[in-house]
Structure formats: C-alpha cells, structure tokens
C-alpha cells in the first residue's frame, strides 16, 4: 500500500458519549480520573445484575435540533448525526463550501464522501410490535393472521426506515448534501475504526477529496445487557482493563466522527490539522463469533499490517491505546498479540473503556479522537480504575494516572466479535 505523496490528515473531530458532548469535555473527563460509568437511567436496572453503563445525557433536541427527524430515526442515529455534524463544523468545510462560487458547489459535493460504522440495529426496535402481538393472541384468530391484518393500524408506516442501519449515512448526506463515495460498515466493534481506515483509503485511491468517517452505537438496552451478561462478558462496575480484578466490560453509548482530507487541500484552505493518518491493518482469527486465539496472533498480524502500510517500524510507535475491554481473555490475548510485536520494549500503553464504557461499533473511533488529543497535548491518560496489573499480564507499561509524553505516533487497537482485529496508526502534526 503506497502512502507517498500527499499525506491524509484529520481536520475535524466530533464526539459524544457518557463523558461529554465535546472533545474538550471528554478529554478532561478522561484525565480527571473519574469514570463516566453510572447507574443506568434508561430502564429500571435495580433488579439487574448489571446496573451501570455510560449514558449520553444530552437530550434528543440538543443532539439534533430538527424535531421532525426524531420521529424517523433511532437514538443511535441521533448520536451519529450529532458527531458527524460537529466534526464537519470543526473542520470548517461547510463554511468553506458556502464561500465557493455556486457553480462549483455541486462538483465539490460529489467529491465529498461519508463512511459510517454502525452497530447495525438493536432488539428494542422490534418491541414496537408488542401491543399488536398481545392483541393478536387475544383475538381468537390465528396469531400471525391477525398480526398481519392489523399491522397497518398499530405500527408506524415509518418503522422500517426508522431502523435502517444506514440512517446516519442517509441523513448526514441529505442534510449536508454530501454526495460522494460512501459506505456503511456493520462489523460490530470494528465498524467505527474501519470507517476511519476505509475513508483514508478512499481518498488515497482518488474516490473522494474529503470524507467524514463516523462511528455510532447504542448497545445499552435490556436484551443486549441480558445476553452479554449470560455470556459472561459484563462487569457490574466500571471496567478495569488489565487489572488483576478485571471481570468484564460495561456498555457505553455514543458516537465520534473525523474529517479526513489530503494535507495539500487542508493547507490550501487554511484548515487546522489535528493529526495524520498513517495506515491500518485488519484481519480476523477465523474462530467463530466469540472465540479468540490464545496466542493473540490476530492482534499481532493487524499491527504488522498497520506498520507495513504506514512504512514505519515498531520502535517508532510512541504510545498504544489498547482495546482493553476489561474481559479476562480478551485483555490477555490482546497483550499476547502486542508482545509478539514489541517484545519487552512496549511503549507506554493506555485504554479508555474504564471511563466511557464499551461503545461497541463506536469504540475504536472514539478512542482515535481521544488519541489525537493525547498526541497533541503530550499527555497519555491513565487507566484510573487500575489497582494491580494482572499477574498474567505483568509487567505492563500502564499507569492509573495521566502521564506526560512526547509520543509522535499512536497505535490504536480495536477488536470485535467474529475475531476481528484492527490496528490504526496516527501521527501528531
């Protein structure tokens, strides 16, 4: 993969999660040592084994002001649209387009793309059918017969559209008239980070001149919590990645977005540059939906691919942001994979899910936005819930406190169901 010539840079970022609704807010929370994992408010979890999550506290109106749109999209879409439009605003691109001669705006829109990573849907959307199901059972007719016949009287005609996985792509496109290359990635946890990677590749490949990459998800719903808990993946408190006492993850909801373009274009329009995209790797362990290779070979292959595509060596990596979801096996195999590359010369490492929970499809891109801040500010946020590094993992260059850093290059890891491993490399500018 060639990366010579014009580097791809980030010129705008947007974020919303339990830790805040702006980049500075989330950054500050991350460095405060205080978790944004709190009592669940969206449903009564008082009898549940899992009572906490990291919920977005902004109201729907604060997320997307157009009330009409609220009826036709889901909560996850509100978050994605919010983050995308904040990132675009931050990049200055909408204002730049406004200043173009009118005759040039159409072509500019055709060269402006969107790549979105999404969780792909939730269980709750089907609950809209419950009143009808109750009625159908009581009807004395065949249940499905009654269900089908009365469907149109009981459920909104917009039901399907409300639940399309590609709604953020659709509505950010319509609202902003961005009409270029696009994709909607539904690769579970890896969706958001792959949106960043595919956006960068599309620009390199000449498919678009600028792309907004978005990741959004709202995994927090009772049925999802129930299944994750049954599978032994959930903790009852803020996650403690890499700790001896790590016992699972908790959900967070949220979204993040990044605007990518060529450095020459960014400079020509006087945009501020947040950092540079260097390269990425993506592979999988081919062991089914939940199992992980004990030697971490997927993690190490993803890192190798990322290093190779970036044209850098492992020793140039200044900081690692691990997936660190707080699950015993996931954390252990992740470290095994990292060690296969770095041996005993691991650069300082951190992980962020202790603060804003596991955002599933949005997790990797939220971490990327925060790592751009980390490089820019010369600070690596600590893992505040860390007490004792797991004896199966020690020694690890991690800290519970934020530390000063001169790192230029960050490696961000993101893992997901289906044994998917991704690695992204970014550089300070």
């Amino acid at each position: 993969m060639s990366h010579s010539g014009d580097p791809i840079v980030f010129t705008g970022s947007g974020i919303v999660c339990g830790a805040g609704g702006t980049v500075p807010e989330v950054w500050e929370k991350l460095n405060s040592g205080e978790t944004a994992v709190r009592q669940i408010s969206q449903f009564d979890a008082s009898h549940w084994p899992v009572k906490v999550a990291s919920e977005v506290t902004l109201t729907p109106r604060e997320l997307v002001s157009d009330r009409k749109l609220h009826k036709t999209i889901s909560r996850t879409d509100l978050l994605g649209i919010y983050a995308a439009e904040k990132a675009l605003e931050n990049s200055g691109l909408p204002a730049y387009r406004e200043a173009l001669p009118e005759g040039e705006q159409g072509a500019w829109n055709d060269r402006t793309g969107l790549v979105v990573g999404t969780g792909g849907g939730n269980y709750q959307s089907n609950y809209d059918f419950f009143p009808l199901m109750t009625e159908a059972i009581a009807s004395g007719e065949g249940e499905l017969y009654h269900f089908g016949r009365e469907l149109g009287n009981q459920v909104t005609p917009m039901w399907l559209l409300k639940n399309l996985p590609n709604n953020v792509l659709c509505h950010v496109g319509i609202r902003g008239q961005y009409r270029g290359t696009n994709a909607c990635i539904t690769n579970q946890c890896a969706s958001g980070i792959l949106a960043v990677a595919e956006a960068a590749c599309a620009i390199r490949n000449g498919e678009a001149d600028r792309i907004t990459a978005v990741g959004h998800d709202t995994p927090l719903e009772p049925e999802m919590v129930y299944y994750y808990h049954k599978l032994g993946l959930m903790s009852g408190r803020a996650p403690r990645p890499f700790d001896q006492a790590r016992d699972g993850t908790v959900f967070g909801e949220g979204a993040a977005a990044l605007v990518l373009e060529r450095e020459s274009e960014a400079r020509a329009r006087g945009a501020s540059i947040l950092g540079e995209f260097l390269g990425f790797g993506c592979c999988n362990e081919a062991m089914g939906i939940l199992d992980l290779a004990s030697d971490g070979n997927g993690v190490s292959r993803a890192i190798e691919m990322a290093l190779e595509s970036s044209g850098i060596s492992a020793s140039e990596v200044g900081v690692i942001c691990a997936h660190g979801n707080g699950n015993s096996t996931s954390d252990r195999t992740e470290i095994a994979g990292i060690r296969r590359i770095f041996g005993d010369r691991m650069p300082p490492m951190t992980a962020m899910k202790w603060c804003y929970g596991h955002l599933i499809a949005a997790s990797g891109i939220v971490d990327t936005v925060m790592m751009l801040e980390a490089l820019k500010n010369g600070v690596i946020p600590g893992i505040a819930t860390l007490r004792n590094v797991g004896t199966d993992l020690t020694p690890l260059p991690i800290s519970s406190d934020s530390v000063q850093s001169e790192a230029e290059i960050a490696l961000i890891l993101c893992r997901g169901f289906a044994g998917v491993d991704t690695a992204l490399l970014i550089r300070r500018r």
Partner: protein
Amino acid sequence: MSVKEKRRVAITGLGLVTPVGNDVDTTWAALKEGRSGAARITNFDASGFSTTFGAEVKDFDPEKAIADRKLLKYASRSHRFALAAAGEALADAGISPTESTSTRWGLAVGAGMLSVDYTDLQKVHQYAAANGEFNADGLLSHDFPGNPLAFCRWQANAGQALLTKQFGIRGYASSVHTACASGGQAIGTALKVMRRGQCDWMLTGGFDSMLNPLGISGFCLLGALSTDNETPERASRPFDLTRNGFVLGEGAGFLVLEDWDRAVARGARIYAELAGDGNSLSAYRITDSPPDGDGPIQAIRQALSDAGITENEIDYVNAHGTSTQMNDRSECAALKAVFADRIGDVRVSSTKSSMGHLIAAAGAVEAAVCCLAIRYGIAPVNANYETPDPDCDVNLVIGQASKQRIRTALSNSLGFGGSNSSLVFRNPEEVKA
C-alpha cells in the same frame, strides 16, 4: 493524484442460492427463461398481510449444504444460504484457503439488517411484555428461555464469523449494509482491498432473508411491495407501466476474486474481470432516488471511469429494476443520461423480474448474473414485461433471453438511504495483456 496501474482482479468462482435455484446452474437456467420464483409464502402464515406472496428459496437442505452441524446451530436462515453459496463459489473456483495462504484471503459481505426470528420475539413478548408493555425485569425470570446462541445469530457480523471460520479465511474481514445496495458495495469493497494489496484472494458476496413476519412487516407498512396476491409470478415486472411494487426475495450470492495473473498462471476459468466500482449518495430521500437519475448517474460514471472505459463499451446492463414506480423511472433516467445516443444499443434487463428483490444479497447475486451473461453470451430476459412506460424507454430484453456477445456488463444496486453502487465486469477476451 497520479495515475497508478491498477491491479487486475479476476472472478474465478460463483455460488448462488436464489428463489429460482439452489445453485448457479439451476438459477441461470431459470433466468434465461424468465421463470418466476414468486409464489404464496410458505415459511409462515402470511394470509393476513397485505402481501401474501414472496420469492422464497425452495427445498433448501441446510444439512446437505453444510456438513458442520455445530456451525449450523449458529446460523440463521440467511447465513445458511451464505454458507452454501460461498461453498459453491470456492468449489467452482477450484481454490480455497490453505494453512499458508489463509492470511492472504479476505472476506467482504453485504449482510442483512439485524432482525430476529418471530419465535424469538414471541419469547420476549411472553415473559417481558405479555400485556403489550415491555418490562425489562421479565427477562430476569428464571423460565425465560433467552438463548445466547440466538443472540450470536443476530449480531451484525455473525454471518462473517461463520464464513471465516468455515473456510479458514484469516485476512481482512468486514460486513457492510447499505440496504438494497449492500451486495454491490461489498463487492466494491473487496475489489479495493485486492487493489491495495491487503489480500490476494477475496470471498465476497451478500446474503439476506427478510421473508419472515418481521421482515415483511417493514415493507408492508411502507407500501413498497406489490400486492398482486392473485398473480405472484407476474407481480415483479420492472419497467412495465403497470408495475406496483417489488417482490421480496431471499438468498445469497458469492464470488471468488483472485489476482488476475495468478488466476491465469494456474489455468483458472475466468468468468470476467471485476473491472470497476462506483458509488455515490443520492442525498435526496430515504426511499427514492431523484426522478432525473442524479445520484445513480455519478455511480455509473465512476464505475466506468474506474474500469478505464467509456459508455461505448457496455453491451449489457443488469438493472436494479425493482419494479417500483420511482426506482425504475429514476434508473432509466440515469441510464439515458449516461448512454445518451447509445441507449438503444445497450441491452437492459432486471432479473428481479424472476428472482424478486433479494435486498442485501441482490447486488451480489446480480453480479454473478453479469458474469454468467458474459461467459455464455446471453443477456437474461426482463420477464413479465407487457405495457411500455414512456419513462422507461430503454432497450429491454423482452420475450426471451438475447444471445449476444457481451464485452462489458454493468450492474446497478440502488439502496434505501440513497446509496448507489455500480460495478463493471469485463469479458476476459477483452482483457489486453
């Protein structure tokens, strides 16, 4: 942007499970004749729904198609189609991942949207919403039979997990979903991964099955489906003036992509070169693309340009052609804008006239159809066409399939949400060394 030599990508294997056949040969035979796969729904009692028919996959025996029983437990209906079609594609290509090549094999699939079986939803209803109102604590009941296996089946990348495991694909793996454009965009993604050198082989395709109570409900509510309940086999009539909605289908389509030079070196049968990919966003309305074809036009032009050809080299278009009023009009406007004076020379058909609309699988199945059209020199028929629509005056293949040499073929997939995908397939005889 400097013009780089693009890596050439060969299509060397095909696999299909469709409403008109559970493999490539049966499907192709039906498409040549324009035989319909639509009939009264048998998967469930659809008699109360506004549409009571669909294009179901018939007589599909998952245990025959998939040897690994354990894997089957994790597989939803659409995953089973996917495993069968992918297996056929790899066998057809005569090459599959080995210990030494597995990390150079990738997977890119268009997967259906997260849905659940009605029977799974019934259990949640019974325990947590019997009176119609959802009460989360009901799930905590000791008797609630919430099954983590079912959970695994409905995860966004569950199909991907089964495919990579079954075939030992350890490189790049991803799933995309842009509604009806998913299959096309997945193949476009696979092409890009090949070109940027991240993989040397890709298994790519799409799978979907929305022919269940909840799946069909969404489309019934929207009024998107044909309600010709008395004449299911004639209901899908793309470009016909009297068309009144699409026919919901199900199935899977898979392609094996391979580095061109390697394919030639091993003497593989090459169906076509996957030559170009284009995609755009209509940014117009959720369900429609603009009447003037704006959006699809850019996707088609990008695909042609990506393939390094002009519109003059396209002989056949496998249209998205859903048989809805708006889609067919918009797509024809786009074709007329792109092909201009040549529009009369380009044969157009929508094989949804036979198979119905396979949603996330549609673009992948139709990509395979383009490969077969090129290989056999036959443009399949646009079935059920009777009454011309002045807005859809393109050169449709009507009455019977058209025997003709096809130099390059174009396949369009236009999705809800406004994503448009176009792919260009080149006849291997047209590939200059």
